[in-house]
């Protein structure tokens, strides 16, 4: 019995360490590959704790293997957006300017009832007050509510450049051509797209960019007036 107790304690400490090494994502928001490792580790540990005929290494080695795979997947996801999209998927805009996007909801196997559930969980009880709803890659729903009264309705922000790469879907959606955007960025002292950590098109029509750390991590705001010229 003491052995069982000690095995459980040992495995608990080992798993705690492994989960800590894999990053905070394990606890906060589970991506598919995070979910796999968490479930598999739990199962491996449960098997090892109870069976004293099996050496602890029989569980430790697969757990370490899963840790290495998770590190590789996380590393590749950081380096390649395409790989990240393949592994995690991409966020889906389920409600656009108050209109439910039926095709996207079908793509995500998401029913209106599911949407209502999530909205209610966020204290929103009617569709009328939803301007935008985005189904995030970790399964949570982010909602941008409509403004009441005569105030202008909020607009969604879009990433135009992420980690030195164009976000083509957003550019297409906003009908922004890379060429004039490049010219605008040059006017603000940015010569290379690769130097940009992110460039966001804000809801009010202005742009905000941050350079990569190697370029000083400077933040630049481009006013609405100049950004407006980009949208054709």
């Amino acid at each position, binding site marked *: 019995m003491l052995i069982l107790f000690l095995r459980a304690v040992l495995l608990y400490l080992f798993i705690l360490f492994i989960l800590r*090494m894999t990053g905070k994502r394990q606890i906060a928001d589970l991506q598919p590959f995070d979910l796999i490792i968490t479930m598999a580790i739990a199962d491996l540990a449960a098997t090892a704790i109870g069976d004293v*005929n*099996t*050496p602890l*290494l*029989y569980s430790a*080695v697969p757990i*370490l*293997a899963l*840790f*290495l795979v998770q*590190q590789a997947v996380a590393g590749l996801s950081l380096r390649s957006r395409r790989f990240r999209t393949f592994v995690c998927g991409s966020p889906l805009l389920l409600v656009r300017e108050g209109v439910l996007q039926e095709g996207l909801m079908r793509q995500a196997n998401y029913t209106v009832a599911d949407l209502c559930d999530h909205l209610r969980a966020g204290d929103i009880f009617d569709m009328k007050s939803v301007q935008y709803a985005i189904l995030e890659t970790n399964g949570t729903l982010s909602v941008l509510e409509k403004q009441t009264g005569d105030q202008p309705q909020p607009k969604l922000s879009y990433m135009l450049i992420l980690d030195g790469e164009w976000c083509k879907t957003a550019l297409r959606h906003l009908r922004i051509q890379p060429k004039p955007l490049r010219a605008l960025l040059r006017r603000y002292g940015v010569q290379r797209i690769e130097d940009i950590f992110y460039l966001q098109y804000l809801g009010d029509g202005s742009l905000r960019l941050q350079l990569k750390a190697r370029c000083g991590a400077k933040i630049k705001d481009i006013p609405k007036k100049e950004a407006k010229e980009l949208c054709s």
Partner: protein
Amino acid sequence: MFIKVRRAFTLLTVLFLLGLFTLPALYLRDRCAELNELCGQVLFAARSGDAVEAQRTYVALLTQYEALRRKAELFLNHTVMDDATAPLREMDVYLKTGDAPALEAAAVRFRLALDCMLAVETGDLRLLL
């Protein structure tokens, strides 16, 4: 700091796993070869009717096996080890009763169990699926 610790841990994990993939297999391969040889000597002595020599070699075989078992239990499933222990104990009984065919059969089972042990540890691809 955390990133450095994680990188170091990842590197150590890779080294640890590489060590685990090679060192126990090498150890088992050598010890199993010795055990196989000793098992052959027990059978040879028994066949030639030298009971004293057979018993003496058997004791050496058992001692070697127990030494292997103590270490192998750290990295091998205990049921795999039990599969080898049982026929080895039977060999002692058949040596004392002089039952040659049963002794041969027990020796075959012992050798098969050793092969199975080796296959588990040396990464035999047949066990993959």
